[in-house]
């Protein structure tokens, strides 16, 4: 459809879009005359180039180019002729161009450069196989190290305080923090509620289904309670927030970097980390534990609902079983992880945001990297916590 339209468009621009050329030998001396006609435009350039290559012939002889029949010429057509003329002149042949009265095609040809300047390239010797294999690995290692240093820098700057104001060492800006808590915490409540409710319900259903074989259906309460409070609650909330708020932080800081807003902050004597990163870090550290609590309640509610409808366990039974199954350490062990997850998400997102370069593509790349890296590190740290708890019998 579109290609058809394109064909039509081509027909419309040039009734018969072709570049014609007729060669005759010069009378009297060694050489030839090219009589050009038709449309010497970019649409006909491929055919014209082929035809010119055919008739290029002897380079040493004289050449007259007659442009009187040309209906239309643009830089593409003129460039092809310019190239042919330069080639002919290089062989010592004389070239003259005659133009129709009132047309400027000859001027156009002579306005073009004789040949294109080659870019100065400074290429070293080609890399050996060893280099080609190990350069990316080494680069990745250096990148990991740079990321770690940048993360420490951001963490350190954040610990130092929000921003340096005259006469004050540091100043918190409550408005910014509350605003960020609203954006990253309060507005995430509905999706976290829904997701956790479903997760709790699904775990309960699967657990009940398997435990039914052993006649131990009531233990599904233990299963859901411990799993959700210790692991799943904080982990899934963190992953959700990494996708939701981590990407937003990277995109915001990254686009500010692209528009030199970060530089503007710097020359005003404000620390970009203090102004931009610190409120977000504080907000995340406050919001993520609270969201985790909400997520836990929603998941337990979902589990209780499924336990009642699928396995016939009443809410009273569910609650009394739950009270026996979990103790304070179960809840604490899960909740302790939440602020760490928040810091990881915030720092990884800020590091990636500050690495954004000048192009839209790099913004997209770093937002992706931010989400992928923070989810990876969140899961890794969760595993480390599990090992630690096992070691200290918590």
């Amino acid at each position, binding site marked *: 459809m579109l290609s058809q*339209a*394109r064909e*039509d*468009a081509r*027909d*419309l*621009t040039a009734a018969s879009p072709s570049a014609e050329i007729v060669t005759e030998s010069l009378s009297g001396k060694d050489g030839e005359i090219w009589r050009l006609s038709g449309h010497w*435009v*970019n*649409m006909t*350039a*491929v055919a014209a*180039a082929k035809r010119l290559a055919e008739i290029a012939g002897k380079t040493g002889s004289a050449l007259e180019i007659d442009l009187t029949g040309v209906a239309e010429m*643009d*830089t*593409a057509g003129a*460039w092809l002729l310019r190239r042919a003329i330069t080639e002919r002149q290089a062989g010592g042949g004389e070239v003259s161009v005659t133009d129709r009265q009132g047309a*400027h095609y000859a*001027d*156009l040809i002579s*306005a*073009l*450069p004789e040949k*294109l*300047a*080659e*870019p*100065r390239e400074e290429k070293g010797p080609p890399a050996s196989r060893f280099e080609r294999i190990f350069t990316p690995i080494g680069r990745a290692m250096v990148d990991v190290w740079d990321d770690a240093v940048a993360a420490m820098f951001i963490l350190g700057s954040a610990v130092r305080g929000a921003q340096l104001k005259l006469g004050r060492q540091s100043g918190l800006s409550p408005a910014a923090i509350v605003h960020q808590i609203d954006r990253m915490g309060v507005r995430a409540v509905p999706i976290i509620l829904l997701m956790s409710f479903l997760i709790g319900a699904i775990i309960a259903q699967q657990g009940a289904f398997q435990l039914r074989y052993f006649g131990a259906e009531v233990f599904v309460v233990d299963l859901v309670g411990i799993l959700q409070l210790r692991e799943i609650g904080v982990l899934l909330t963190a992953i959700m927030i990494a996708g939701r708020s981590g990407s937003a932080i990277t995109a915001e800081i990254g686009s500010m970097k692209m528009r030199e807003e970060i530089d503007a902050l710097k020359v005003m004597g404000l620390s970009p980390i203090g102004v931009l990163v610190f409120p977000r870090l504080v907000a995340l550290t406050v919001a993520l534990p609270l969201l985790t609590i909400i997520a836990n309640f929603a998941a337990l509610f979902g589990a209780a609902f499924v336990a009642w409808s699928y396995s016939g366990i009443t809410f009273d039974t569910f609650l009394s079983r739950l009270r026996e199954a979990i103790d304070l350490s179960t809840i604490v062990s899960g909740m302790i992880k939440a602020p760490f997850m928040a810091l990881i998400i915030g720092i990884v997102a800020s590091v990636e945001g500050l690495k954004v*370069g*000048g*192009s*839209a*593509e790099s913004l997209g790349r770093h937002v992706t990297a931010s989400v992928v890296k923070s989810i990876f590190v969140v899961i890794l740290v969760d595993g480390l916590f599990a090992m630690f708890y096992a070691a200290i019998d918590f």
Partner: protein
Amino acid sequence: MDSTSAKQDNVVLSVKDLTVGFGSNIVLDKLNLDIYRGEILGFVGASGTGKSVLMRTVLRLLSRRSGTIRIFDTDFDKATEAQRLALDMKLGVLFQHGALFSALTVKENIQVPMREYLDLPQAMMDELARLKIELVGLAPEAADKFPSELSGGMIKRAALARALALDPALVFLDEPTSGLDPIGAAEFDELIAKLRDTLGLTVYMVTHDLDSLFSVCDRIAVLGQKKVLVEGTIEDMLAFDDSWVQSYFRGKRARSIVRKT
């Protein structure tokens, strides 16, 4: 009578009774404007009078309330799909900040319209892109650079090269010399005049650069009071009795240039 009809044939862009507004705010009211083949029209007006709105409306980036816009005697609203494509190929636009695609190199930027409209082999597209780069006065090394690695003047030149990629007949330039140093701006003006002479371009130039207006523009149109206040040569501008036009063309900054010319 004969000369006016000959002039009519040469109208490249014709805007009739154009009204554009946002909400209750009318920006352009029954505006009329003609641009003739092969001329460089300089478009001036105080900030916020709708110069950019007019250009964006002509380029169909904004919708209009009423009026007709004919480009190469084709009304876009009534054109067929094929005519629209043909029309798009004849327009080149240099946006104020270049609007180069940041993920592509300069060469790839220039090749975007070629790739879209023409079936050229890669080698020829490379050669044509390098030719355009040379025509707009960029170093050949710039071809493989990304827009974020270029200076402001180089971005303008690269954007002009992209605007010229398909050898358009009508080129829109939005403040082409803003942000350039005076020498660079003068070179850019010369470049536009040279391209007009060799390629037979018609140029619609929104500018605030008095040097450009005095040196390369054949005709000047002033936008004010929601329409074209006055159009004509620089002498017409100097003779026109309007306080804004007078202070614009006879102000302190303009006087020194007038004296020179």
